[in-house]
């Protein structure tokens, strides 16, 4: 079972349908966690949402508790929550991209996805991860083709994955396959 933590976003249920079509998915609000179900789940997914990681200390706690024990996937705010927990700073980006479609490139041979390939993705973010980002096991694996902003991190040893873009958006035609690859890993 997948446990999807909702940060009161208006895109969470798009993600829930994507996940649920791969594996049964349970959704709850970030302030209303069902600890029994969370414990039983095999994968925890951190949803997109408004604000920034420091607004959601409960989610940071959950991430730290289960990292390395369960598979964790973060989308948009969820991506930022992962890298924030790993010590990264979150800053405002120059161009604010809400409802924007752009090309994303896989730039790291450590990625579980095919290196150097490109795909179109939908983006909803005004904030980004500040760089340089240093981590032993977590790697930046995708970037925006145009601006070079980090778009994905992967830590395949601990099975932690994060996407800054929205695989759940209709603007990401290949979104389901990206998620499928992570869930079936």
């Amino acid at each position, binding site marked *: 079972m997948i446990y999807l933590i909702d940060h009161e976003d*208006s*895109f969470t*249920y798009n993600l829930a*349908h994507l996940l649920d079509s791969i594996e049964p998915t349970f959704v709850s609000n970030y302030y209303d966690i069902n600890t029994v179900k969370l414990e039983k789940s095999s994968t925890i997914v951190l949803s997109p949402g*408004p604000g920034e990681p420091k607004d959601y200390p409960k989610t940071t706690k959950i991430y730290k508790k289960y990292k390395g024990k369960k598979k964790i996937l973060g989308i948009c705010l969820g991506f930022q929550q992962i890298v924030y927990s790993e010590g990264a700073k979150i800053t*405002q980006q120059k161009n604010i991209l809400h409802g*924007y479609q752009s090309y994303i490139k896989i730039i790291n041979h450590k990625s579980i996805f095919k290196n150097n390939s490109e795909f179109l993705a939908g983006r909803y*973010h*005004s*904030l980004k991860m500040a760089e340089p980002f240093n981590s032993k096991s977590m790697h930046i694996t995708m970037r925006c083709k145009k601006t070079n902003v980090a778009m994905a991190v992967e830590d395949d040893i601990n099975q932690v994955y994060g996407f800054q873009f929205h695989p759940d958006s209709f603007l990401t035609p290949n979104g389901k396959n990206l998620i499928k690859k992570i869930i079936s890993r």
Partner: protein
Amino acid sequence: MLNNNEYLNKLYRSDQPLIIYKNSNGFDVYTDFSKKYLINKKNIKNFLNIQTKKKKSNSNSLNCYVGFFGYKLLCENIGIKFPKQKTNNFYNGIFYQPLTKVRIRKNISIQSLKNNFRNIKIDNKKYSVLNKKFDLNLSLQQYSKLFDDFSKNIKQGKTYQIKIAQTYSKKGKVNAVELFWKLMKMNKSPESFLIRDKNYSIISCSPETLILKKKNLIKTKPIAGTLRKTKSLNKNKALSFFRKNEKETKEHNMIVDMERNDLSKICKTGSVKIEKLKRVEEYRDLFHYVSTIKGLIKKNITNHEIISSLMPGGSVIGCPKISTIQLLNNKEKNDRNIYTGSFGVIHSNGDMRFNIMIRTLLNFKNNINLSVASGVILGSTAKKEYNENYIKAKSLLELFH
């Protein structure tokens, strides 16, 4: 005995409460209300799940409830608390159960459960509307200040898009039926309606369908994107404008994903699909950019759950819904009243049709008011959005010329 046409004309000239709702074939007129339900946050769930599910019947039957939910009620229904706002204490929501339904198509047909329904009296009430301009609650300067504040919120990631509402108002009491038909000659929008009750009336040329539910199929048709009409523009040129315009495209994309989300809450996994993406619809003063999204409702989902996941409609608030409503509530000094609430019909078999109450005029306590809103999105300017609001209000304001 009066023929159908004479009856209808007499009904219009009476003071009997009535509702007119446009549909794709013509208009439906509802009257002879046997019951009136005042809806509030405590009884809304009960009303939707018990009251409106008493009998089995098909959509053509008289067994239905027609009315509206105000904006505040819809927000409270999803657990949002309001600060103190200026209000005229209008109803939170009202639904009527009709005994008589008149279908205006090529011919007029009537269905009634009331004996002698043709017995009505003409009313000689006087109406008066001062020949004065409408007052606007926000100046460009005040609007710009809000615009800047919300732009900051967008940069901080607290909201991705937010819509500022403005209200036009003036004193007077209107002849609602006359005004409604005048409006229908000028601007026959697909979700137009009229409610005339003893102490208030609502006149609308709403273009936006929020819920179309038949059995387990549900559709929503969000609008995001407005272009002022000019002589040189046609539908094709409007389409290419929208396609090339990054701001309109982004705004629309966001609303499509948001409505997909709201439907996904109540629909079967994998059943939510975009039926029509980014079409242009033409109206009297403007072009709109519209999409249609549909899904199949999960088993055991109640009408209250459907209303709670779709309302208040996202396209007129911004995104994400909850945090954006909270930001709006802290800044909007006047309550939105009926504006961005929903009007529609619930059939006793559970089928529903609801719009979003935009381009809608409320006449209550000798006051006529009308609100419009447009989006703060980075890349736009306060002045442009302020002007867009005027275009949206125009066809209703011109009713009084």
